[in-house]
């Protein structure tokens, strides 16, 4: 699934008026809500409903810190986004939910923009995106700790809680 626009902000991904919810469930139907009021929008097609990888223009996820953005993308059925740049807070929020934010070089990104609807594979173990039809294999970078957490099912909060003693020590000296 390709959304070529650059600078897609989190207000587009899920408009603020839907943020009064106190749960994280059921946000998929609100994903890109105001774009989807156009019945012919790509996101309303059957193809979009089965798509798992979103290919988006440069600087995806800019704007607000709302974690509702990756929640909505995941609830809709997406598992990863590929772009040439992804905004910091969205990037961090995505990883914390097991939604892969993949930053890839321009050539591979262009190939993806030119081949919407193609089946590709993302290998998190090898940190590589495999493009079919001789599109080639492209590496991507991911924080090694996030990769470890995703592959091993390690919870970041558990890890932080394990640091309790060091935190207490820090507090004694500094706070």
């Amino acid at each position, binding site marked *: 699934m390709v959304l070529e626009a650059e600078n897609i902000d989190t*207000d587009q991904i899920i408009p603020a008026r839907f943020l009064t919810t106190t749960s*994280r469930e059921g946000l998929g139907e609100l994903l890109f809500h105001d774009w989807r009021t156009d019945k012919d929008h790509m996101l309303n097609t059957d193809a979009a409903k089965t798509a798992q990888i979103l290919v988006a223009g440069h600087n995806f996820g800019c704007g607000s810190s709302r*974690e509702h953005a990756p929640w909505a993308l995941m609830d809709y059925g997406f598992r990863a986004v590929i772009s040439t*740049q992804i905004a910091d807070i969205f990037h961090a929020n995505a990883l914390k939910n097991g939604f892969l934010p993949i930053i890839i070089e321009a050539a591979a990104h262009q190939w993806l923009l030119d081949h919407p609807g193609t089946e590709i594979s993302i290998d998190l173990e090898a940190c590589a995106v495999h493009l079919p039809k001789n599109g080639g294999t492209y590496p991507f970078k991911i924080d090694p700790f996030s990769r470890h957490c995703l592959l091993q099912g390690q919870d970041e909060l558990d890890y932080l809680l394990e640091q309790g003693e060091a935190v207490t020590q820090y507090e004694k000296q500094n706070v």
Partner: protein
Amino acid sequence: MARSLFDKVWDAHVVRGETRERPAVLYIDLHLIHEVTTPQACAVLKARGLKIRRPDLTLATIDHSTPTKINADGTRPYVTEQAQEQVELLLANAEEHGIQAHGWDSPYRGIVHVMGPELGATQPGQTIVCGDSHTATHGAFGALAFGIGTTQVGHVLATQCILMRKPKSMCVHVDGELADGVSAKDVILAIITEVGVGGGTGHVIEYRGPCFENMTMSERMTVCNMSIEAGARAGMIAPDATTVAYLKGREMAPVDFDTATEQWLSLASDPGCSYDKEVRLKAEDIKPMVTYGTHPGMAMPIDGLIPEDNAYMDMQAGTAIAGTKVDTVFIGSCTNSRIEDFRVAAKILDGKSVAKSVTAVFVPGSERVKAEVELEGLHEVFLAAGVQWREPGCSMCIGMNGDIGKPGELIVSTSNRNFEGRQGPGVRTVLASPATAAASAITGVITDAKKYQGHYHEFRTFQNTDLQDIGFGGGKHRH
């Protein structure tokens, strides 16, 4: 090695250093919370049987989903039941966990990024987080302050720490002096246009140079607030005498203020420190700015010609932006809703009326700002001009409380985001300074405030000491 302000604050908060395998464990001094991004985090803690590690370092307010009107019977007209439930849940969670919360009955309640500094909870050298991207505002005090998502809100509630790799650094120098009538909002819009809407991604910005040194804290907050609109999670300005003077006497200012001051003033970047990226602008080159497009990097001088077509905004390349018809004017938001912003607006609106075709909505950033404005009598100028003077909150900046425009309307707004639909579906937003917003309210078209300069009388302005007379200040809310 010479260290920058950012290096110093970062280094002082590392509980466990970063390695190739794992990010740093960074200690958080102040965690600000509000109703929108906290409930799901509290639910996770509850489900896992975890306590809040430092409720005393957590400060809560209600601002996003709160109505800015009061019904005749004193009740608050929430946009939906869900909005009311969200607000009540925040207050209930705060109560349950012993968190200082400023709800409806507090004289300090306000937009989280207005209230924190006003209380003196925001202090130089701190690490500050909040589930809100405009947390960057607090960097005006030389704090490292940035927005986080709800999962990380949960991390901080449970452990007072976050996992993070040290971002890169960027220095934005602005040399020289601003021309009359050019405001902090114009400066940051010019910077975002220069850096680009994603140009600061992965970086923490330090703003340096005489332009920022000469600014008040309010102006510095306006600048740092919009760092995120250039993609930078945080923006910082070194603490100086202006910072110290602002904090003195605040409710949560340190007891040993002199010792704190000494430490704060040692935070400025060392001579010769290096940055990963540097950008330089001249203050003299900056003009009053407005946006013409659908992100904050699409800004231009108000006296210029629109540089490119924008279909959503119905803007045509090559035409003047000044003179474009305006339907609504909004002065408010964590960017521009402090007393100084309303003083500027009052000077321009004094003795004049809002155009019949325009709805003008002014929303103070906090109960304290509201009290200050009313103490100075500025609200009388607004009411006489036909402005709606509302209760404090985020209001039309994000529209979560139902304060939105109608499809197709053009709003001149002192807020921070002009994304499509930000102020309501189909609404077109033009970001501007309070001066431009006030001038445009009078004429009904986008207007350079230049024509209104020098035609007003000076209002009496109150200082912190005056505010103590009506109950503010004096260390009442220290931890």
